[in-house]
Every structure is written in C-alpha cells, then in structure tokens.
C-alpha cells in the first residue's frame, strides 16, 4: 500500500541546530521499549506460525513471515517515520477489513453455502456415511456426545469407545484417536481434553442434529448414532464409483451422476443428493439478483425502502436537531437551557440496542405502552406502513440529539454580524436564515450528513432489533417489507433454513457498490461546497 511506503519527514520543520546533535536523540528507555516490542512481535509470530506449520498451511505461514519482516524493516530503519506510526493500524485494517472484503468478492462467484460446503471428496464421504444401514455383525461403539466449544453451539463430535477400550473422536471429516480420554465403567467417556461433554438435556436439545450426523469410517462404511449412548458402524448403501463419476444406491438401484458445474449428484429425474460441493458459478449469483423475477422484485423493492429509510432518517434528524439547536440559540437568556440540554441528549446516551428493543415492545400490539396510552388496538409492527413509520420514528428518536449537538457547535461558529448585516439590509428572519445561516451551516454539516446517510443505509440494528424486517408478505418469507439490504443479506447467510453464503456475498458486493457510488457523489458535492465558500 502506498501509505506504508512513506518517504521523508516534515519539510516545514528546520534541520536541528548543530549543537542539538550533541543531545542524545531518544533515550535509552526509548530503545528499550522498541527492543521489547520487537521481541514481542517475534513471539506472536512464532506463536501464530506453529499451528500453521503443523497444519501445512503454507500461505498463512508466508503471510506471517512477510508481516514480521515488514515490521522489522520499518522499525529498524531510520527512515519511513510516518510508516512507523501507521503500520499497526494499517495492518489491522488490512487484516480485518480489506481482506474480508476481497474474500467476500471471491465467495460471491461460488455456490458456497449449506449443501455446498466442502470439496467433492468430502461430499462423497458424507453421502456414503449417511447411507449406512445397520448390518449383521456390525461394530458397535459406546457413544458419548461432545462438542468443540460451547455445549449448545460448538461443533458436534461423537466420542466412540470401542470394545477394546480405545476412544475415537468422529465428526463429519472422519475419525481420529483421542489419547487422553478417561472412561467410566460403562465405557462412557467421563473426561476428554478439548471437548465439552454434553449432558442428557443438552444432547436432547440437539437430537435432530445427532440423528443426522454421519461419521465416515473406512472405505464404504460409516458410523451413526442409535439413541444417545450407542453408535453402530455399517456398510454404505450408496456407493461412489470413480469410473462413471456417479453414486449408485444399492437398495433402490438408482444412479446419481456428478454434475461438476452445479456441484451436486443428480439422478435422471433431476433430483439431487443433499450433500454437494463448492464450485465456481461465475456471475450466476449476480445474474440471479437482477434477472430472477422473484428475487429481482424483492431486491429492488428492498433497495427502494432502504434509500427511503436512510434519506428519511437523515432528513428527520437534521430537521429536528437543527430546530432544537435554533430554539436554544438565542443571546437572551433562555430559562432552563441546561436542563433542556441534559434531557435532550438522553436518547443518544442511553444504550441504543436496549432502547430499540424497548421501542419494539412499546409498539407491541398486545401489551405495548402505545396502544394502552392511546386506547387503540393497532398492530403497529404488523402492517407495512405502520411498521415503516415506527422504524423511522425509533431511528429519528435515537439520532436527533447527535445532530442537535453538531448543529449547536456549527451555529456558534457562525459570526452573528453576518445575520445582523442581512437583517439591516432588509432581509426577513426567514430570508436571513435561508440565505445566510443555512448555507454556512451546510458547509460544516455536509460531511456529517453524508456520514449519517451512509451509516443508516446499513443500519442493521435499527431494523433487526425492532421489526426484524417484518411484516413478511405471504409469498416471500425471506424478504420482509421493512428489510434493509443488510438485514436481508444477514437472513440469507445465517438466518434461514439453509445458508447461501455465495448469494449473500453477491448482495454484499452490490451494497458496496451502491454505498461507494453515493459516498463518491456526495464527497464530490461537499468538496464543491467548500470551493464555493472558500
């Protein structure tokens, strides 16, 4: 990046006087801090590199080495002073903002999602394992249910105790031995390092997941749970044949052929096996957004409301914030000014997420405060128009105090003489405001308004915590009428029945483009504003 390759220092500052050279530049303390920090960065690099090397992740390892080399090159050199200050922030920025954006763009041209997660080999192993039937003389295991991470949400693992007492850990990728597990008298695992054992209640909560889980074992066999404490190994009834690149179901005789363009096995009728693999689909996801009639209409109606929401919020908070600032902006003493100020900033200082949930409950149809106070029986969040009005009201309530603070500061910066001169020249109060105060105000506030618009364009919380995108039309359960693009994307990727990461990523890229365009246009316009008033 250009920012990192900074050149010389400040040209404005004069060269040090000759005598100053005698003063030690930088203390011993400075050098010591530098040495310690460099040592720490080596430590972190080694710490990060060890598991990467163990896993054979050479790209990750190369990145670690490159970053460490860059750190040493920048900080040991006497030049590149600006880079010394920018490097930490820029590294984090690249790692957690720029790289994810690039990755999103990469994902958007694949079919990645539920049913298309891993490679073709993983899909075949999964299909075979899932089809096992309990045959005669099958190997049985004592099953202990466990998870990596939290009991309720971590990845499910089968801890299997064989007849000879060995313990194996099995998940969707296969089996691996567990060396340090201790087992009880029944063979159940009582403790295993790195795994959270599930209690009966926790296992009951994930029973569907457990009954669907299949652990690929040897070639053509798989292990499945029968109940919560036993598992069996059996032969697969669906078998992959590399010669025809197809899967044959031995019980029904049906043949599923691999389709490498769509990433799944299809039979003659066009039905697919649910486990597929990840393939590139080119611009298909983008084409879906624009061309698929069902999706295109929901995408564009969401986009329309999204613009209305962002513009409406920006306009609303601007008008209310400015009005309050103007009402308080008087040279004659206004009684209670301090009290007004303290109370008016309350919405901004209260925790926003909690206030959104609170507003949602105030609009609740059954026991909400608003219906009880007004004596009405309106299902506020159940109708499109009232839900949209509610979402805007809530968001304006949250945002206007910030605009009030900004407007107060901007008003104080405008010399009063200008307005007085206009009044003397015969301008009315409104004319003076419209032609003198407002244009000057806009110079200071335009960047803030642009930022407000951009922020609210993607204001996930304001919708997700209030209406959750609803109400949903009966014909489109995935796209609600108060959905913003960002909440719609979130539901596609995480919320629905099956995750569609590829498609969600394509919509993310669309949002990038829209926000960039709007930012670019408004930045140019605000730059023009500055030119005019210079």
């Amino acid at each position: 990046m250009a920012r990192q390759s900074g050149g010389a220092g400040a040209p404005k500052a004069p060269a040090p006087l000759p005598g100053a050279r005698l003063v030690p530049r930088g203390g011993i303390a400075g050098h010591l801090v530098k040495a310690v920090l460099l040592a720490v960065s080596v430590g972190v690099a080694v710490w990060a590199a060890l598991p990467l090397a163990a896993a054979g992740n050479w790209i990750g390892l190369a990145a670690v080495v490159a970053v460490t080399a860059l750190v040493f090159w920048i900080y040991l050199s006497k030049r590149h002073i600006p880079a010394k200050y920018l490097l930490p922030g820029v590294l984090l920025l690249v790692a957690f903002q720029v790289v994810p954006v690039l990755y999103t763009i990469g994902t958007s041209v694949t079919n990645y999602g539920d049913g298309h997660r891993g490679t073709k080999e993983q899909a075949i192993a999964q299909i075979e394992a899932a089809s096992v039937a309990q045959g005669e003389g099958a190997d049985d295991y004592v099953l202990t249910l466990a998870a990596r991470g939290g009991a309720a949400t971590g990845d499910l693992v089968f801890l299997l105790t064989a007849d000879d007492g060995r313990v194996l850990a099995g998940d969707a990728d296969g089996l691996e031995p567990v060396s340090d597990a201790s087992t009880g008298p029944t063979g159940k695992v009582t403790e295993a390092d790195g795994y959270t054992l599930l209690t009966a209640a926790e296992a009951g909560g994930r029973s569907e997941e457990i009954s669907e889980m299949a652990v690929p074992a040897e070639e053509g066999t798989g292990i499945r749970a029968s109940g919560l404490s036993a598992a069996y190994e059996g032969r697969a009834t669906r078998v992959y044949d590399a010669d025809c690149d197809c899967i044959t179901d031995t019980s029904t005789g049906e043949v599923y052929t691999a389709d490498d363009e769509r990433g799944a096995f299809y039979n003659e009728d066009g039905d697919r096996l649910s486990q597929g693999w990840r393939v590139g689909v080119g611009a298909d996801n983008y084409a879906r957004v624009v061309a698929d009639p069902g999706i295109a209409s929901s995408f564009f109606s969401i986009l329309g409301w999204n613009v209305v929401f962002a513009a409406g919020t920006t306009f609303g908070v601007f008008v209310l914030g400015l009005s309050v600032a103007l009402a308080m902006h008087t040279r004659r003493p206004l009684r209670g000014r301090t009290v007004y100020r303290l109370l008016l900033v309350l919405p901004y200082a209260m925790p926003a997420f909690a206030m959104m949930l609170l507003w949602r409950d105030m609009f609740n149809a059954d026991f909400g405060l608003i219906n009880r106070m007004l004596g009405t029986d309106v299902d506020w969040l159940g109708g499109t128009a009232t839900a949209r009005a509610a979402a805007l009201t809530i968001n304006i309530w949250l945002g206007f105090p910030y605009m009030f603070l900004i407007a107060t500061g901007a008003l104080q910066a405008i010399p009063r003489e200008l307005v007085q001169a206009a009044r003397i020249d015969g301008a009315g109060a409104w004319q003076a405001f419209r032609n003198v105060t407002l244009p000057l105000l806009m110079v200071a506030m335009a960047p803030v308004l642009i930022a407000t618009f951009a922020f609210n364009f993607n204001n996930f919380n304001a919708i997700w915590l209030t209406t959750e995108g609803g109400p949903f039309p009966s014909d489109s359960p995935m796209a609600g009428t108060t959905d913003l693009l960002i909440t719609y994307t979130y539901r596609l990727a995480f919320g629905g029945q099956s995750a569609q990461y590829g498609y969600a990523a394509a919509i993310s890229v669309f949002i990038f483009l829209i926000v960039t365009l709007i930012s670019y246009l408004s930045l140019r316009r605000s730059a023009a504003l500055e030119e005019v008033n210079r």
Partner: protein
Amino acid sequence: MAQSTTVQRPMRRRASRRTFGHMWRHLFLLAMTAFAVFPVLFVVSAALNPLGTLSSAQLVPTGVSTDNFAQLLTETRFPRWYLNSLVLAVSNAAATVFLSALAAYVFSRFRFRGRRVGLYGLLIIQMFPQFLAIVAIYLMFSAVTDLRPEVGFDTHWGLLLVYMGGALSINTWLMKGFFDTLPSELDEAARVDGATHAQMFFRILVPLVTPVLAIVGLLVFIATVNEFIMASVFLRDPDSQTVALGLAAMVADQRDSNFGMFAAGTLLLALPVLAVFWYLQRFIVEGLTSGAVKG
C-alpha cells in the same frame, strides 16, 4: 418569565415581546423534551415496577421495588455480561484511541507519499460497515478457531481484533483536525531542543489533545457496548457474551415476564455512560464540530 417582566418594568413592551418569543421556544423545546424523555421514563418505571412484566408497566411508576434488580443480579448471568461488556468496550476504546492518535499525528505533521490517498481511503473505508464482510470474517475465524482456539470464537481476543480492524476511521479525521489546531512552533521548539519524533508525540502533543482523546474514547466505548451483530457471531458461549446479547436474548425468550429485568439492566448499563457523557458534553460539541469543519 412573569418575573422578568416585573423586574424590567421600564422596558415592559420589549420585555413582553421577548417573553412571547421565548414562549414559542419553550413550547417547542418542551414538546421535544417530552419526545426525548418518555421512553426513558418508561424504562425507569418498568425497572421499578414490582410486577416486572411488560403488560403491567406504566409510563409513570406505580410502585417502587428493587425486585427486578435483585432478580437480574442473582438469577441471570448479568454481572458476568456486564463485566464482559466493560472489558471489551474499555480495551477497544483504549486501543482505538492509541492507534488513531498515532495515525492522526503523522497525517497532521508529516507530508509523505500516499498521504492524500490514505486520508480519503479512510473516509471511504468507513463507509463500508465492517460486518458486510461478516461471512468472510466468520469463515476466517472458523479457520483461526481450529488453529488457535485462544483467539477464535467464544473469546474476547478474537472479537477485539476484529473491532480494532476499524480503529483507523472517521475518528482519525476528528483527531487530525485537533492536531492541526496546535501551532507548528511547538514542534520546532521541541526539535531544536533535540526531541525525537516519538518524544514530540508522547511528551508534547498528546497532553495537549487529551480532550479529543477522551471524546473519541467515549464514542468508541458507547459504540462497542451497543455492538450487536459481530458479537452475536463470535460469542456463542453464554459466559462470554455481552450485555447487548444477554439482554436481547432475555426479552426474545420471555418478552412479557422478563421485561422488568430487562429495563433494570438497561438502566444499570446507562448510568456510567450517562455520567461520563454529561460530564464531557461541552467537549463533545467542540470536538465534533472542529473535526467536521477542518476535516
């Protein structure tokens, strides 16, 4: 108001006009204050409501009881969530202020290749909310969790790293605006005395921009406490969750009956923020506007 007309008797006509002009201001401000305050009043009332349900909560408190607070502190993991939120918010605020101040210093005091691109790049990047790329971050950290669970999901370190990716942002502009207001004679004098660029930054400039550091710290603190979506992806284990996640889950399961506890939690979270906010309010007005004007 009636008092001011009697005190300034000789100027009665002008005074009554003044009162009339102010009356409109007061009417408008009272209406806006009511709009701003009534949901907050409802929170207070619901938190003190002895029944603790949504359907029984009124706008004006009907009774005073601390049951909701006691129940919240003993029956839920609220103390744990509160601690998690504070730790995350304070560390993120401190890291952001530090990283942002470093960047603002060079953007203000040095002229180097890529400076303009860098400044505008920051403005553009902050237009992309980080979590648009949430799928990518989710997958990235799935890999990290396999390799180094210490910084993966269910840890605060992982989440903090992602938050710090957004440290350089509009805040850097705000700080740069402040650094720009400090006269360059300061730097020259220090340079003549043999100060290094680091000494100049830490010993001379940073103490002078403390107000803006405090403001940015407060803004980041508030934003982190309110952050919901990244946290919901990262923190799945109930013990690692933040107040935002915990309170949201509380009213998602049992909307009506947990409402009193929810309101009590909201108040407990608001109190420290409000105290600092009111204390810093004057700085905030100055800080925000000078950043915006000089940008």
